[in-house]
């Protein structure tokens, strides 16, 4: 385990993240241009999709079926457990509980990629169809949690305006769904998968140096920015309290273990189960925040952004992934 941890800590990904964190802690002016951040995330998601699509063309439906089912299951269970823990034990308001739960029900693409790279480095590559599972896990959790929030606050019943017109905010659920399904990350991932699937190995060949050769380097740069973003939130840790700190590290272990178990049960390899565990354990900080902000404006953004970005993300990158891997290996050994 210690050796696994050491390898993980000395990877360019972890080091870049730590460098970013460190730069913020010593209050350096270093910052990546916003457009570079956006460009890198577009590149990473599209590359992930393309590669996944090319590999998907080799996979059979049968292989995919059970993993897909357990992934969707995770998308329903994790927002509920997160909500219950926050509301009952943490005593957060309904809006705050639902808002944070939406983040933990969804998934962080970078955590996914980091887990994928990690198991590959150790010689246990995950299944080629994992990016497909990633797309399945992205949105259900957000909707489940926002649904809980809506039902609990009965917020939908807000009054029409003096002149009889409905307030702009009261958007039909269809609209929210459309927004999440057509979100940038969805289009790039699903679109990439489709394009990769259609072009196949042969079409992929000429663009491989760009989308595969550069991938790890681009990811390193991206994690520098993630470190900077997480570092900027460290100061908020004081105001968010000890409970959230514990939540942000224990919840991932619970969700991650569940993910590993279900993945193993569904027939995934050690690498695949590890990655599914990391997905379940991760909290979204791309898709969830705007959806929550617009639908549950009463929820305090500091809470969910800090938990997802400054606690759970680094926890998973540094400690979580090796733990899920260890667990997956134990399970595989025992089966």
């Amino acid at each position: 385990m210690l050796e696994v941890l050491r390898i993980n800590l000395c990877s360019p990904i972890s080091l870049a993240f730590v460098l970013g964190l460190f730069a913020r802690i010593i209050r350096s002016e270093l910052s990546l241009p916003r457009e570079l951040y956006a460009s890198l995330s577009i590149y990473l998601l599209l590359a992930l999709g393309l590669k996944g699509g090319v590999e998907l063309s080799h996979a059979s439906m049968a292989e995919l079926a059970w993993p897909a089912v357990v992934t969707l299951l995770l998308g329903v269970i994790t927002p509920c457990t997160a909500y219950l823990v926050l509301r009952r034990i943490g005593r957060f308001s309904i809006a705050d509980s639902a808002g944070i739960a939406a983040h933990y029900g969804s998934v962080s693409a970078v955590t996914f990629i980091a887990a994928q790279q990690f198991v590959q480095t150790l010689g246990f590559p995950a299944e080629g169809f994992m990016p497909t599972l990633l797309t399945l896990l992205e949105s259900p959790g957000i909707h489940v949690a926002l649904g809980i929030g809506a039902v609990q606050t009965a917020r939908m019943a807000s009054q029409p305006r003096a002149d009889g017109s409905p307030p702009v905010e009261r958007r039909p659920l269809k609209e929210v769904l459309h927004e999440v399904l057509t979100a940038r990350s969805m289009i790039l991932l699903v679109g990439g998968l489709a394009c990769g699937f259609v072009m196949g190995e042969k079409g992929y060949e000429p663009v491989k140096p760009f989308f595969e050769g550069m991938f790890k380097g681009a990811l390193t740069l991206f994690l520098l920015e993630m470190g900077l973003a997480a570092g900027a939130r460290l100061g908020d840790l004081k105001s968010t309290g000890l409970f959230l700190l514990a939540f942000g590290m224990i919840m991932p272990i619970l969700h991650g273990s569940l993910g590993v178990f279900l993945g193993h049960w569904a027939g995934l390899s050690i690498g695949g189960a590890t990655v599914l565990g990391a997905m379940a354990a991760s909290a979204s900080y791309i898709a969830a925040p705007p959806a929550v902000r617009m639908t549950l404006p009463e929820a305090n953004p500091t809470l969910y952004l800090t938990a997802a970005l400054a606690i759970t993300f680094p926890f998973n990158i540094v400690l979580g992934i090796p733990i899920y891997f260890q667990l997956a290996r134990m399970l595989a050994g025992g089966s």
Partner: protein
Amino acid sequence: MHTVPLTLLTIIGEGLLRERLITEIERAGAKGYTITECSGSGSRHRRVGELLGENMKLECVVSPEVADKLLGILSEEYFPHFAVIAYLSPVSVIRGDKYV
């Protein structure tokens, strides 16, 4: 030149509100608007383009009535939950009918 006095309504706040605020001002009768990206700080802390995006400044030249109506909507439905401010300033335009 002959100019007509109108009102410039400036709304500054979270960039996420962009589409929603555009819908608001168009429904209220504004005939156009201009949006600029910005950053800033106020009672709800410094906001400088993090994960939830930058601030934006939405400006529209409107009649005093439309401006008043929009201020009402803003203060009731936006000020409580969102980081938003708004103010009015007097402006003179030519071709005043373009704006009302």
